[in-house]
């Protein structure tokens, strides 16, 4: 089961006997391959629309709870549109959907959204967070930008395109880890290697200790990002809780020690250095290439001066049915990719299913999305997770299939308002007896601002933008992302630090965020544009112009007409004595609606 070398590595740092831990691993849920599940028997047979719902309902009924009623159509179209493409629905689309009597109205809407190229823009950001995508380095010595990634956007655009094309997830991973090693006539996909090739390059990177730090970044991003395992913990000592040894860590680190960061010249036109790299980073794509294959010594307690035994490059012991065989081809990157996407790997599909589920539903199935190990959370509904994971692989690793499966479920279509009994019994909504009320992230929030002000540019892909530029109408996914100085607006609104893999976004609520909403030039500009739209509304003779403007605002921002009380409050605000004039008071009114909780939350 376990090689001699591993045992030596284990003994060297004095950890408990390894077979014991591996034995425990055999019964740990995450290390057993997911299997197709039998559907639970449910009492309310009319509710489930598919397999997802059977598992959700089974769990609810076990707790003596029942699902919430379905969401009303306006809430549903706003929800599914923001969730799938990250933009609010167009008022015309809302009215059409509300009036659509076809039994497949919702299915048709979902099909349209999944086919939208904006879906790739939405989903890409999830991936870029975990890939710690950035375009520069945390350390800048003087004005030296030679380690920057001016063409990083080409990787970002590749991710968007791949998601829009529904590239199977296994190929999506293969290309990002080893595109250069796959047989192919064109090299268009090599830019995918930016997954590793855009990683941080630390100060003084020739230094052995700094090299070791860079390997750790690569191992961490790959293992937490793709496998949901915190392998980097084993750099200094055997993992304290999971069956991952220092030997496992250095077996993987060896793959990256055998891989070089590479600025490959763009076709023909750029000057090359002796080593084949582009002289100027702006004339290149930032990828990786094979280096000299090397097996690493275990570094005892992570100390570069204390070399333990050499470990051959290979995959993690715990994730294979058999003892992992050593990687034979070059660095071993291709073999690593294959081991990750192997259908017998118990983690890869589950980890991705959990990420997509969380992005759409709000509550995760596993609360620690990048740690499925023993210190991570246990799944709230393992049968559901496993059933989805198996069927996801059977679908040909289609992320679109997965998204469709989730948003078509009755569980997803529930109202976010539930009976008090359900809320009391399950305050964290682990059982999904209602839909979660979700917050807009910074991308969806700014993009909504652009959309409702009528200033959204819909071009897909291209060079990065200054996201706070009030006149820039491009989507937030195209922001410049800096490791050195993350844009202050992005930082303020919980965009993760791109120096490391981000497992999930933390949600904070601070007055500084609200100062941005109140006073920033960006909000001021889009408020002005939105107010212009409202004031410019055309009215029929005899129609109340104030009502028409308020109605337009509510349809654009909230996908619904205003209530009588809201109309009255609006009218009072814009017509009160002493207001500073029509143009300005409508700006102030528009800003209030933009700053509201209703805009910021998805029911």
């Amino acid at each position, binding site marked *: 089961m376990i090689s001699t070398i591993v045992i030596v590595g284990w003994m060297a740092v004095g950890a408990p006997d390894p077979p014991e831990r591996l034995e425990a691993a055999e019964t740990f849920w995450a290390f057993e391959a997911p299997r197709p599940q039998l559907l639970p028997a449910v009492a309310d047979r009319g509710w489930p629309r598919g397999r997802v719902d059977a598992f959700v309902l089974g769990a609810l009924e076990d707790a003596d709870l029942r699902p919430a009623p379905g969401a009303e159509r306006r809430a549903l179209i706003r929800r599914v549109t923001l969730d799938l493409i990250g933009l609010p629905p167009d008022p015309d689309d809302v009215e059409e959907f509300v009036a659509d009597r076809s039994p497949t109205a919702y299915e048709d809407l979902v099909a349209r959204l999944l086919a939208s190229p904006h879906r790739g823009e939405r989903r890409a950001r999830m991936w870029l967070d975990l890939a710690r995508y950035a375009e520069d380095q*945390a*350390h800048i*010595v003087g004005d030296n930008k030679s380690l920057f990634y001016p063409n990083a956007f080409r990787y970002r655009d590749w991710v968007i395109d791949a998601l829009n094309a529904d590239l199977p997830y296994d190929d999506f991973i293969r290309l990002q880890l080893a595109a250069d090693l796959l047989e192919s006539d064109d090299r268009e996909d090599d830019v995918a290697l930016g997954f590793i090739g855009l990683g941080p390059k630390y*100060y*003084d990177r020739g230094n052995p200790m700094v090299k070791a*730090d860079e390997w750790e970044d690569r191992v*961490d991003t790959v293992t937490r990002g793709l496998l949901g395992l*915190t392998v980097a*913990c084993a750099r200094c000592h055997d993992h*304290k*809780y*999971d069956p991952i040894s220092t030997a496992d860590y250095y077996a993987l680190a060896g793959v990256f020690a055998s891989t070089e960061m590479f600025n490959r010249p763009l076709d023909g036109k750029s000057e090359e250095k002796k080593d084949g790299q582009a002289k100027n980073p702006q004339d290149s794509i930032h990828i990786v290439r094979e280096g000299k294959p090397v097996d690493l010594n275990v570094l005892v307690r992570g100390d570069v001066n204390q070399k333990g035994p050499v470990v051959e490059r290979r995959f993690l012991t715990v994730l294979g049915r058999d003892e992992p065989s050593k990687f034979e081809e070059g660095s071993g990157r291709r073999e690593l990719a294959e081991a990750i996407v192997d259908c017998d790997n118990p983690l890869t599909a589950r980890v991705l299913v959990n990420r997509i589920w969380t992005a759409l539903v709000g509550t995760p199935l596993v609360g*620690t999305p*990048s*740690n499925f*190990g023993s*210190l991570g959370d246990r799944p709230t509904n393992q049968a559901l997770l496993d059933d989805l994971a198996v069927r996801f692989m059977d679908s040909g690793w289609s992320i679109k299939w997965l998204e469709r499966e989730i948003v078509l479920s009755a569980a997803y279509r529930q109202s*976010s*308002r539930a009976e*008090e009994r359900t*809320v009391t019994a399950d305050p964290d909504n682990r059982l999904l007896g209602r839909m979660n*009320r979700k917050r807009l992230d910074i991308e969806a929030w700014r993009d909504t601002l652009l959309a409702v002000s009528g200033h959204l540019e819909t071009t897909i892909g291209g060079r990065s933008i200054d996201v706070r530029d009030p006149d820039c109408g491009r989507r937030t996914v195209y922001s410049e992302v800096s490791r050195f*100085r*993350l844009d202050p607006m992005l*930082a303020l609104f*919980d965009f993760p*630090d791109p*120096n*490391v893999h981000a*497992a999930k976004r*933390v949600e*904070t*609520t*601070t*007055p*500084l*965020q*609200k*100062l*941005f*909403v*109140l*006073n*920033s030039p960006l909000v*001021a500009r889009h408020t002005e544009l939105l107010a212009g739209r409202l004031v410019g509304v055309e009215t029929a003779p005899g129609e109340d112009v104030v009502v028409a403007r308020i109605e337009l605002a509510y349809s654009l921002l909230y996908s619904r007409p205003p*209530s009588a*009380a*809201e109309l009255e*409050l609006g009218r009072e*605000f814009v017509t009160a004595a002493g207001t500073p004039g029509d143009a*300005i008071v409508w700006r*102030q*009114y528009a*800003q*209030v609606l933009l*700053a*509201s*909780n209703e805009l910021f*939350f998805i*029911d």
Partner: protein
Amino acid sequence: MARKRNERRQQSPLITRRQMLGRAGAGFGLLGLAGALAGSRAASAAVPDGLPHIAPRAKRVIFLFMNGAPSHVDTFDPKPALAKHEGEQPTGRHKNRKGGYMPSPFEFRPRGASGVVMSELFSELPACADDLCVIRSMHTDVPNHEPGLLMMHSGNQQPIRPSLGSWVSYGLGTENENLPSYVVLCPGRPVVGPQLWSNSFLPGEFQGTAVDTSDLRVDRLIANLTHPSFSRQDQRRQLDLLARLNDLHRRGRPGDAALDAQIRAMELAFKMQIEASDAFDVTPEPRRIRDMYGESVFGQSCLLARRLAERGVRFIQVYYVTSKSKQPWDTHQDNNGGHRRLCADSDRATAALLVDLKRRGLLDETLVVWGGEFGRTPYAQLGKKNTRPGRDHHHTGFSMFLAGGGVRGGLTYGETDELGMHAVKDTVHVHDLHATILHLLGIDHERLTYRYSGRDFRLTDVHGRVVEGIIA
């Protein structure tokens, strides 16, 4: 404000302030909602419990950072033996330095009743000698700025860990809900930059709020503090309407604390426009006080630090950076001239801060820290012909000082060897300094943890020991 907070904490031992924030799932400043929100959400695992772990000696920290690293043998650690060995080559890993040992040209004298020794480069600081606790036995892991800065700020050489100020904010929260708990003052950017005040994996509310002090006009200091055209009355009308609309929205969605948190944050932002405008504006200070600190950016930043401290900002970092240099103390050439100029400015501002804090009764509860990322070599670094000799980076022995906040004043702690090369007695590693700073704030550095990536992280990793000998 501060006193009120403490009372509240003592009155309700069952629900700590931090748990409250955790339940609200929201940022600083939710205390006002305590009653409304209690029990409405499960407590977050992210929030530290049981604080303070020990009786706090200090409530806040002002860290005066001398970017580029000051020379210990020219400031607080006199080495007469350097004269005897002048020009001789150091041994070991330092050998083959063309310059050889270089004595300090500056005269050292014991100061105050306690006799804390400092060089003639300081003319104002001697008046505060009895408040200073000079540590002569500091050491760190590497002699390079980037990793050295990161180590001093976050206990790790790579930009992947939260900063000291973020840990403190996370542990203790804010004393003033109308201001950020962690403020960073710097003209432009120091070397490394914002990673030095990063929250890293801690929640975003604990990141340092960076204020560019190149222009001290208050509307330039804080982004988005005022609206470009709407008056305060206009905004009040807006917020009143917003409150009504949010209230209608909330009525149909009872029991969702996240909605309340947003409403509260908006009201706080409105108040903060006034509070921050006042806190960050040094112009109302009497001319006499402004002069005492000196007209330099560092001087006025120290004054600003005092204003923030007295308003309850928890952690204030002041960087000694100039418009010309991101690390002015990096005196590879003309070490003596550089130190003469830099110390004069730093001396005046630092002494003014200590005196001013003391006069206001704030020094006892405010820990002031002075130092850089490491020290400078006791031997010379020779540049081109006709340039005056400098000193290189040096990490195995250097000096820092602490004052106020529960440290023993008038103390000189630890020693380097005869030539100032290595800390040899009562050595203090950066991790030990961090452990001690947390201790003075009432935090056990081993118990302030955050669960991330499958394990509990702490500022001091697996290191750090509280330097009991410097605590009053």
